[in-house]
């Protein structure tokens, strides 16, 4: 059977959740996929990767991968690929994994496909293009392995309860190809559920008019309980909220039970990140805003009136 590899991105909080989705994609055509985990916590992650279907996990806990993102990982992968000759390597379409895939393509000269949503076999996959309006079936040629980047949340992770064989790896990364090095990290403290995991996502856009109005969404989130606040890129670019809030093509993909957008017009690049929500509510004062047309419930109105009234009403219901 086709040799499918999954590049399991190891973040500071453990394996990236998309790694488990990649294993589900891989298992659609290979019963025993292999995962490659590089970075501190890789060996520990092997158990979870095995429990999601990885038959083999190549693991290396060397700090070089976190200190020098991208290049060392691509270097180690290239060596392993030469030795083991897989048919395809799957990556999550995240900034960090994308950098590894791009580097790897430069060194091995294989085909690389981005924004894939499903994969039939190592040479055939499907992608969404033009902001998710068109679906293309793509055939990949060139030397093996093909490199396919899958958009997070295009498939659900599936626990298999399996156990992986763990193969420890040495990081043999010459000094002169390590490249840029991280010297400082700055993290905003996060509270509440992760945007990607929340059952309810409340998103604000340019219509909020400034950073202060996001407090209305925060308050609504806390009244609902377990809701996360996100934003359009317009609100992020304006500096009202950090990039971690961004939903869409260049931000996060969310699939909550309820997605409520306030003051967001519904540009394609935003929609691609939230159209999988079970129920979409949009509040917009412009009756022609595209998001109203695809919402399960469109509210034509001023968000500065609707949001506080909504918060009050839910509070009243919960209080009674």
């Amino acid at each position, binding site marked *: 059977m086709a040799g499918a590899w999954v590049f399991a991105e190891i973040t500071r909080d453990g394996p990236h959740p998309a790694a488990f989705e990649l294993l589900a994609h891989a298992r659609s055509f290979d019963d025993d996929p292999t995962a490659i985990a590089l970075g501190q916590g890789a060996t520990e992650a092997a158990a979870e990767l095995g429990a999601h279907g990885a038959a083999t996990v190549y693991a290396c806990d060397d700090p070089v991968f976190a200190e020098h993102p991208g290049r060392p990982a*691509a270097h180690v992968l290239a060596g392993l690929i030469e030795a083991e000759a897989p048919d395809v390597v799957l990556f999550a379409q995240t900034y960090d994994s994308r950098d590894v895939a791009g*580097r790897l393509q430069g060194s091995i000269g294989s085909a690389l496909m981005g924004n894939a949503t499903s994969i039939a076999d190592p040479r055939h996959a499907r992608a969404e293009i033009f902001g998710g309006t068109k679906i293309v079936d793509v055939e990949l*040629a060139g030397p093996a392995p093909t490199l396919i980047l899958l958009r997070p949340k295009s498939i659900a992770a599936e626990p298999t309860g399996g156990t992986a064989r763990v193969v420890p790896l040495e990081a043999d990364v010459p000094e002169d190809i390590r*490249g840029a090095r991280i010297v400082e990290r700055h*993290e905003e403290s996060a509270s509440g559920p992760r945007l990607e995991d929340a059952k309810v996502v409340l998103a604000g856009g340019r219509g909020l008019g400034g950073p202060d109005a996001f407090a209305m969404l925060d308050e609504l989130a806390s009244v*609902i309980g377990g809701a996360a606040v996100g934003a359009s890129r317009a609100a992020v*670019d304006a500096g009202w909220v950090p990039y971690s809030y961004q939903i869409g093509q260049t931000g996060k993909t969310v699939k909550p039970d309820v997605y409520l957008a306030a003051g967001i017009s519904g540009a394609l690049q935003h929609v691609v990140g939230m159209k999988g929500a079970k129920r979409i509510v949009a509040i917009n004062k412009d009756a022609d805003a595209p998001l109203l047309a695809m919402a*399960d*419930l469109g*509210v034509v109105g001023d968000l500065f009136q609707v949001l506080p009234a909504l918060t009050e009403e839910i509070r009243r219901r919960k209080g009674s």
Partner: protein
Amino acid sequence: MNVVVCAKLVPTGTPTLGPDHLVVRSGTDAALDPGDEYGLELALQLTEQHGGDVTVVSMGPDEAGQAIQRALAMGASRGVLVSDPSLRGADALVTARVLAAAIGMYPFDLVVAGVESTDGYTGTVPVTVAEILGIASVTAVRRLEPSDAGARIERMTERGYDVYECPLPAVVTVTAGSVEPRFPSLKGIMQAKQKPVDRPSLQDLGSRDLTATQTVTAVTDAPTKAGGEVVQGDEAVGRIVELLAEAKVI
């Protein structure tokens, strides 16, 4: 500091695919990718502060000359256009090989590109260029200053930002919103017409292996989500609450 900026011509509005499943690039309205203007602005600011020239490189149809003209009008000194009929349908690898070869013809300390293009958004071409050139790279950059080690770079992360020390030469991709791209002045537009635009042939570049590895075999419309109910004013709050209750989240 000499900077090469990668600038792509992209269709304005939603792009369309022709019967051959390739993007229609000729005879459609197109412009310099807005995502590339941030990198160009950063490059212009760097050279204004630290000296050096900005060279703009584009691979595309003849019309990509427009993207180069805009970049020259904003302040770049030289344009490089690689245009060859055989490049139509180029994939990410071919694009990276051509760009790397073209960039390599000029002296540079830094290559600047967009994080991802507006039409293709694969987002890997710049790092692939870096690998082919054998140099360092940092993506999703929001600030860059020269330093003793080369450059001090802030890269956006999911939860904040990381600071990198990066040796030069290097490739960086610049995020939207990190700088405010300038508008070309009238004077800039006039001057742009006098600036050199090189048109190296594929032979000049010596690039081999320019066969695309990606073929689109079918195109379908993604299912569009049908809208539901639209309500106004007073009704709104009650209906939202009902929906939240149906979803069992309150």
